[in-house]
């Protein structure tokens, strides 16, 4: 079973790696941030997969922390853009 779990983990890593490599060549930082979020989810999945394979339950805590901090990174990225907010797309046009 452990081998199968490692194989699944390796597949998830490969998928995340493909996402990283392709998105990295993309034009915007938002795409890079999406790749980072994909990597975060992938890392959670991998940690969950290898925790039973390595019989190391503490890796579940690492998965918990990854979920928490990947979300924090998204918040920090948005905050670093500055305080301007885009107008709501369905807001009525203001008449002069």
């Amino acid at each position, binding site marked *: 079973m452990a081998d199968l779990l490692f*194989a699944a983990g390796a597949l998830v*890593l490969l998928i995340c*790696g493909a996402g990283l490599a392709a998105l990295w060549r993309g034009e915007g*930082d938002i795409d890079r941030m999406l790749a980072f979020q994909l990597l975060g989810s992938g890392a959670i999945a991998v940690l969950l997969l*290898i925790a039973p394979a*390595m019989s190391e339950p503490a890796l579940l*805590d690492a998965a918990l922390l990854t979920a928490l901090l990947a979300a*924090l990174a998204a*918040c920090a990225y*948005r905050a670093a853009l500055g305080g301007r907010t885009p107008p709501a797309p369905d807001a009525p046009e203001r008449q002069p």
Partner: protein
Amino acid sequence: MSLVFDALAGLLVAGAALAAVTAAAPRAAVIAFMGYGVLLGLAWARLAAPDVALTEIAIGSGISGIVLLRAAAGLPAVPPAANRALAAAISVAVALGLAALVLALPEPAPSRAADAAAALPATGLGNPVTGVLLAFRALDTLLEKIVLLLALVGVWALARDPLWRGRPEPLFAGAAPAPSAFLARVLVPIGVLVGAYLLWAGADAPGGAFQSGATLAAMGLLALMAGLAPLPRADDRRLRLVLLAGPFGLLAAGFLGWATAGAFLAFPPGFEKPVIKIVEIAITASIALTLILVVLGPPAGEERP
């Protein structure tokens, strides 16, 4: 099969490091660096070092991400070529030096791991890392806490004289938009719970004061980013008490050891675990607050909200 996994993980770590180093713009480099932190956490997990994995995830992709994104926001979009060449030369030199050191290590590496494991039952703890940090090498931990405090003093010393009692600059300009504020409101309570859990679990399982403190600091920074909490004033008495609780709590426990166990930083026999736990709580609070204040930077004004 685990070998294939490890090879893949190693390649991805190297790839992320390369992406961080070769990125043209500062912000792209920072995002790559955060991804590198997550992957490095995986690598530590595979090296059977879950304590380090927890620290790497909390510090490497969490707090460093905030620090570096903030720094990148203040940099020109394309740094001067001379700086890049200099940075490349320095990092290549550091990498080569580290590689040489690793190759020069004796084989097998000198280790006190067996001694630590053998003496662990005397502390009443189940996690050897916590045992080493708070019982066997408590003096190192005490000095680390003092160094952390000195780092904060150094940061505060950068404040201009008339302003040094006030609040620091906000982390990022402008108010947080609604989605970010919502995310912070959901995440901060969960994160504080996770931080407290890591401290509690640290006695017998991977985790402990530093991992917990780093998680709590990340949540504190998130709350500040989203405007959920006011920026702390440097002259707040309670804040300073929390800053001092860790180092002085450990110091007090150390002197207590003279009275009860006959040596500095020895814990009273029979009560090792409760005393270590109480000291760890104080240390965690100090670490979390010190990290937050170091990231926020020097006080910059009286009237900042």
